[in-house]
Structure formats: structure tokens, C-alpha cells
């Protein structure tokens, strides 16, 4: 692929990168350093995505690196990005939310919106999707009470606003993020009466080799573990918060033991007082743009849908690459490595063997973690018929069960058609995993031809064919 010399505003870029988180940022700077013209689009005001979050400037925080153990890796790339931007090799469009990518082969249009207007579509010869992930939520009675927040959301609130969700915060769900969140909260002065992890750590033992090949990850775990021990927080394994109590706000949670399939064991519930609950079950790849393009998906080790990718990170659609969480949730270090690999193959360059090995190692680690924390089928046992599953459309579990058991819904899409679950503002990002589990169908990637809401007037003003 060659560099195009003309005005970046009219000429197609060699590469459009969607998302300026770790994967997209690494891809953009790598591609630019290899001589490609790059347009980088991102919904945020600053690079870093959901992971590298900047404290709000108004807070005057001087050491964001204190919140991230590998801030330097990010800061280096941000500096590179700014240099490429100044040199005109990268056009960086902040606060541009991409709602669709259309085209084929080497002729792509990236349609985005800003707060007040539809941008002209960005033209590019290749597209790299680095759209990241969002939090997987498994509902339970009381999860809509104020004071119940996503674990990732709690972390994000803390990183960008330095605010705590409460003073006495139970951390629950499943996945490595729980320990990080608990450690951050404890270090910031919150009491963490319990860290409740639904998985056992038994599955880790089967992957000891993978863990040992990832010393950085071990160190990271030890770091959190140490921090938690200092604050006398010990994870409670094979347990879950099966109900949150309170009237105006969460006042306590019921924690119960789970069997191997995550079914709550009757009679094991006990009440833990708290004024906030941070709960999360890992992340779900954001694939709306990819599935609308027809990119093939697979079921990842953690049970979510992820893109099918070649070692060079091509999707099944020629001209479309992907990196980071879109290919399976794996964290920031993997995303950085994949962004670099994808950019290299877009540019037609070889991938250094050491980089490929590093990527494979991190991916294997991610798969091991994903398998360990994959929700067991029995978790729906803690849903009562009245428990809201879809918050946007206020659809309770009972109506989803009726659609499945009595009305012939055999998959999440039909449940949606029959109950409206997943038709609201979040377009099923919140309730999707729960509806799929209740429908008993296989994991399928959601199809959302519009990746985000668009003002009708903006659509009306699209250039005519």
C-alpha cells in the first residue's frame, strides 16, 4: 500500500482506524510510522479509550500514572500520535462516534457523528476496527437500585473523576477486574467488606503453564493481591451476590454460595451491609460495526462473541482488519501488541517474530482467564420472574421466560421481537448476555446496523447516491 500525497480532507486515507484505545492508538502510530496516511476516529475527547482514562482536567490531578501500572506505554504512543498529527500523517478526529462503515475492497466510507452534526464520511482504502468492549452484566434482584454500579464503571468513575461509588463497597461478579477495582477502592479509602468471585480459581491451575509464561500478569495479580491483603480484603470464591436490598438505595446484599454451574446453593445466603455494590462479569467485545459489515464471529473462551481473525488480524471481510478486544477480550497489553501487528499487515510489512510470540502468549493467557470466568449456565437461577432483565424497556425475566417457554422464541432475537428486551437506548448491550442465556440459544453477535444513535436530520442530509 502506498502513501497518498494529496489533501487528507478529500483524498482517501490509506487506513481508517476506528477507536483510539490501546489497540487503535498503537495501530495508528505504527501505520503512520510505516508511511501510511491514517485517519483515526474516536468518540472520546482524548486518546486512551476505556482503559487509559485521563482524570478530568478540572480535578487538577497531576499523576494519572498512579492509576495505571503501565501508563508509560500509553504516554509514549500518545506522544507519537501528536507528532504524526503535526506532521500531517495522522488525521485524528476526536468526539466522532462512528455509526456505520460501508463499502468494500479498497473503497470504504466511515460515517460518524459529532454532538451537533454528521461529519462527511471519511474515505479510506482499508479499515481497522478497534472498537473495544463494554461490561458484561448479569442481572439479579435489586440490580437496578441506586448504588449498584458496574465494576468497570466504578473503575472508570474513579480514574476520570476520582470519585468513589460509596464508602462501604461490595465488589462482586467474576474476572480479574474485580481485584483491581477492589484494590483501587481500598487504596482510595473505601471499605470493601467483601470481594465476591463467582468462579473458583481451580481452573487457573490447569493453565499454570500459561500463567508462568506471563510473568507481567502474575506480577499484576500479586500487586492487587498484596494491596488487598494490606486492606484485609480476601476474595470469596464460588460465591455471588444474588440480591441487593434497599428502598431508595442499596443497603445490603445477599451473598450465596454457588455450585459448579453457578447455581445458588439454597440456604447459604447471608446478608452483607454496604452502601454500594460494584458488580461486573468481564467484558463483551463491541462488534456492531463489524457484524454490520458481515465479519465472521466465533464464540470466545469467555462465552462472548468475538471476531474470527487471521494471525495478521484480518477479518473475514477483505479490506477490514481488527485488533484488541474485538478479537476476544484480552486487556490493554494484548491490544497494544495487536494494534501494532494489524498496522504492519495493513502496510504489507512482516510481523517481527517476537511481537507475534508476545501476542500469542497474551492471547493464550486471555483465553485461560476467559474460560475460568465464563458464567456457568446455572446463574439464571438467581433471577426471579419479576427481576428486570432489560432496564431500558423494563422487561422482567418472567416475560422473557414466557417468550421462550410458551411463544416459540428459540433465540435472543425472537425474545427481543416478542418482549422488546434489547430495543431501548443501549440496544441490548446491557441485557444481551442475560437474554441469550434465558433463551438457551448459542452465543451470536448482535447485529446493529446503526452502531450508535444518529439524529434523523443527519441521516436525511447524507450525500445522495
Amino acid at each position, binding site marked *: 500500500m502506498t502513501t497518498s500525497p494529496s489533501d487528507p480532507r478529500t483524498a482517501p486515507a490509506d487506513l481508517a482506524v476506528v477507536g483510539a484505545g490501546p489497540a487503535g492508538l498503537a495501530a495508528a502510530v505504527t501505520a503512520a510510522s510505516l508511511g501510511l496516511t491514517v485517519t483515526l476516529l474516536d468518540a472520546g475527547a482524548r486518546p486512551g479509550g476505556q482503559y487509559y482514562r485521563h482524570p478530568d482536567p478540572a480535578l487538577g490531578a497531576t499523576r494519572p500514572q498512579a492509576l495505571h501500572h503501565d501508563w508509560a506505554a500509553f504516554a509514549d504512543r500518545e506522544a507519537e500520535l501528536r507528532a504524526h498529527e503535526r506532521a500531517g500523517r495522522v488525521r485524528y478526529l476526536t468526539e466522532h462516534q462512528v455509526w456505520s462503515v460501508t463499502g468494500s475492497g479498497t473503497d470504504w466510507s466511515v460515517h460518524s457523528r459529532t454532538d451537533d452534526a454528521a461529519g462527511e464520511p471519511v474515505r479510506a482504502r482499508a479499515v481497522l476496527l478497534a472498537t473495544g468492549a463494554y461490561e458484561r452484566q448479569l442481572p439479579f434482584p435489586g440490580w437496578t437500585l441506586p448504588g449498584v454500579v458496574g465494576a468497570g464503571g466504578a473503575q472508570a468513575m474513579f480514574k476520570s473523576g476520582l470519585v468513589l461509588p460509596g464508602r462501604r463497597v461490595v465488589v462482586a461478579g467474576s474476572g480479574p477486574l474485580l481485584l483491581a477495582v477492589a484494590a483501587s477502592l481500598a487504596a482510595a479509602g473505601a471499605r470493601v467488606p467483601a470481594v465476591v468471585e463467582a468462579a473458583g480459581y481451580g481452573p487457573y491451575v490447569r493453565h499454570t503453564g500459561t500463567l508462568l509464561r506471563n510473568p507481567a500478569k502474575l506480577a499484576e495479580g500479586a500487586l492487587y493481591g498484596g494491596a488487598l491483603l494490606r486492606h484485609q480484603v480476601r476474595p470469596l470464591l464460588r460465591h455471588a451476590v444474588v440480591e441487593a436490598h434497599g428502598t431508595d438505595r442499596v443497603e445490603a446484599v445477599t451473598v450465596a454460595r454457588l455450585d459448579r454451574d453457578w447455581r445458588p446453593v439454597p440456604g447459604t445466603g447471608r446478608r452483607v451491609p454496604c452502601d454500594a455494590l460494584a458488580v461486573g462479569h468481564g467484558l463483551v467485545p463491541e462488534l456492531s460495526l463489524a457484524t454490520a459489515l458481515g465479519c465472521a464471529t466465533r464464540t470466545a473462551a469467555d462465552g462472548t462473541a468475538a471476531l474470527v481473525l487471521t494471525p495478521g488480524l484480518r477479518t473475514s471481510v477483505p479490506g477490514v482488519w481488527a485488533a484488541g478486544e474485538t478479537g476476544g477480550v484480552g486487556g490493554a497489553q494484548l491490544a497494544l501488541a495487536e494494534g501494532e501487528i494489524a498496522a504492519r499487515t495493513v502496510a504489507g510489512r512482516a510481523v517481527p517474530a517476537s511481537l507475534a510470540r508476545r501476542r500469542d502468549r497474551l492471547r493464550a493467557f486471555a483465553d485461560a482467564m476467559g474460560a475460568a470466568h465464563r458464567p456457568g449456565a446455572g446463574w439464571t437461577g438467581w433471577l426471579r420472574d419479576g427481576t428486570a432483565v432489560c432496564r431500558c424497556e423494563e422487561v422482567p425475566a418472567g416475560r422473557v421466560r414466557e417468550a421462550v417457554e410458551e411463544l416459540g422464541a428459540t433465540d435472543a432475537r425472537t425474545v427481543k421481537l416478542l418482549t422488546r428486551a434489547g*430495543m431501548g437506548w443501549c440496544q441490548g448491550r446491557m441485557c444481551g448476555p442475560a437474554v441469550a442465556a434465558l433463551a438457551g440459544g448459542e452465543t451470536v453477535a448482535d447485529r*446493529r446496523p446503526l452502531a450508535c444513535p444518529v439524529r*434523523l*436530520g443527519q441521516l436525511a442530509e447524507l450525500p445522495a447516491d
Partner: protein
Amino acid sequence: MPNRHSPDVVIIGAGVVGAACAYYAARSGLTVAVVDRGPVAGGTTGAGEGNLLVSDKEAGPELDLALLSTRLWRDLSATLPPETEYEPKGGLVVAPDEPALKALRAFAEGQRAAGVTATEVPADRLADLEPHLAPGLAGGFHYPQDAQVQPAQAAARLLAASGAALHLGEEVTAILRGPTGAVRGVRTGRRELLAPAVVNAAGTWGGEIARLAGVHLPVLPRRGFVLVTEPLPRIVRHKVYAADYIADVASGSAALQSSAVVEGTPGGPVLIGATRERVGFDRSLSTEALRRLAAQAARLFPVLADVQVLRAYHGFRPYLPDHLPAIGPDPRVPGLHHACGHEGAGIGLAPATGVLLAAALTGAEPPLDPAPFRPERDHGPADVPTQEQQS
């Protein structure tokens, strides 16, 4: 392996047409099995808006079918649960200028003769019906018989009420024929369902099912996109669309071309749909289709320009080249019946189709002449794939 209790009829397709066939066949005393390779309402039904329209049909066999269906849907609404969301909200067709209004008047005249209620609404009274309509329209017609149901619910509730045995997620791999050539059932990936009658209600796959039975039925897909806005207070009360007058200079005849239908829903979102494109089973997003829908909606209701579109979806309408469905027995294969090719009107035409089919299955007197819908008729030349303006 044959079931111990073989049904009287196997219906292929758990969309709204198959569901209505099951419902009326069961009411005629037949035992019914319904088989579908997907879930209930997994095809065109699930992608539909639930239009029960008479306003958009010119006088002729399809309008007769629609009028019968309108009465049947009203009866059904008294028996089916409220989740079916039957709403006799009425339609409002507006004309942007005098020539269009004149054409609309002539169109409505023909419809009236066929039994449609159509009331002219002068320009200065349009706001009484739709306060948010754009100013400057020449006038319009109110069609009180236009109505709406929630399509997936309608199919599911009709099926549940039919008591039919459901075999979902089972693809039909063969139509079984006896030594005389008559059908004797179907084979799926999991079982053989033996029955003396098989109904092809497979929608866009109707042509494939016909092929399995050894006959030709040229069912083709026509893509449509629908836009769905954020939930809003009720700002659109009827099914509203614009009729434009298109003079066909070559033939000297006149044709009406209509815009996307804009309507509110009980859930709050406004639906805007749908485009009509003959592009095969292409699932890629057409920004041109979205642009047209959005522009047409904003022209009718300027207030919608600032509303957020939450989602867009597409479906494929099953159509036959002469734009009439195939309903009834196929004389080429004894025991084979068809109920498919309803294009974008399947929700509206489903009950009348079910009644016609049940009559054919039991030998009862049909409520209207089924001859125009004979499956073996000459369907005319196939259309050339193209993008069309129009809904």
C-alpha cells in the same frame, strides 16, 4: 419415523401467514403441525412493521383480500391477548400538491367502489388529525380501516391459540411423495411428519420449498429498511405517508408513488419504513436507503429531524413477479398447498389467507374467489434487480 398421531396438515413456516393458516385450519377441525427452520416470526414477519393497510391497495383481488383480513383482524383482536397490540388507528395519505391530490381522489374513488372507507381531508383540516404535519400540503385522505398489530406477537399468539404442534429449529429437507405423486408429509433434520396435506408458508424461502416438491414458484426477495426512533410521546397518531403523482409519459397513464409510512407505536418509538429494493439477499447497510427514509419522514413531520434514530433494520419481502400471493392447492402436486408471496403485506393479508387455505383443505365454500391467487398461474416476467424509489 412417523409420529404416532399424524396431523391432518403440516404447515412449513412459523411466520404470521403460517400461523394464520394453522389457526384457521385448527378452527376448521384439523390437527396441525407447524415446522420452521428457525424460531417463530424469524423471517419477514419479525422484520415487519405490522401494517394492516387497505389505503395503499388499488381496487382488485389484493384489496378484496385486505378488506376481508381487516374484518378478520378485528374479530381476532377480541380473542387474542392484548400483547398483540391491535390498534385500529387509521391511515392518512397526504398529497403534496394539487396534481397528486387529484390522482389520490381518483385512486380513492376506485377503492370506495370496492368497499373501502376513504374520506377526503382538506388542507386546513389535516392538523386536526396530525398536529405535527408539515404545512403546505394540498390535502389528503383518511382511511379509518388501516390498522396495526405487533407482528411477532401476532404470529406467536395465533400459533399458541391454534394448538398446533410446533417443530422449531427444524429445516425441511424433503417433501415426501407417495407412489401416485401426492404428498404424504415432510422430512426434517429430526423426523418425518406424515400428513395428507402440506402447506408452503415459507415466505422468502417459498420458492425453495416448491422446488423440493418438484414445482416452480418464482418467489423473490425484496429488501426493505426500517428506521426506529427513540421513544417519544405520541406525536404521530395515524399511519401517515405521502402520495406523489408520477406521470408516466410513455404510456400516458398515471401511477401513484408513495413515501415511507411514518407511525407511532404503543412502545413510544416512531417507525419509518420501508424502502423497496430488489437486490437479492444483500444484508449490507444502504446509507442511501436510510437517507431516503429519513428525508421523507422529515418532510412529512419536520419535528422528527431532531429526533434520534436508535436503530435500523432490514427484512426481505417475498414477492411473486405479478405482485399477488400464491394461495391454495397446487394442481401439479396433489396435497401441496401454497400460502406465500405476500410481499410487504403478509401481516395484513394473513387471516384472509388462512381462511382461504382452511376452506381449500376442508372443501368448504371460500369467502371470496381464490382464482386470482392460483399458485400455478402465469406469474409474468421476473423483475430485473434494481433500486427503486418508493415504498
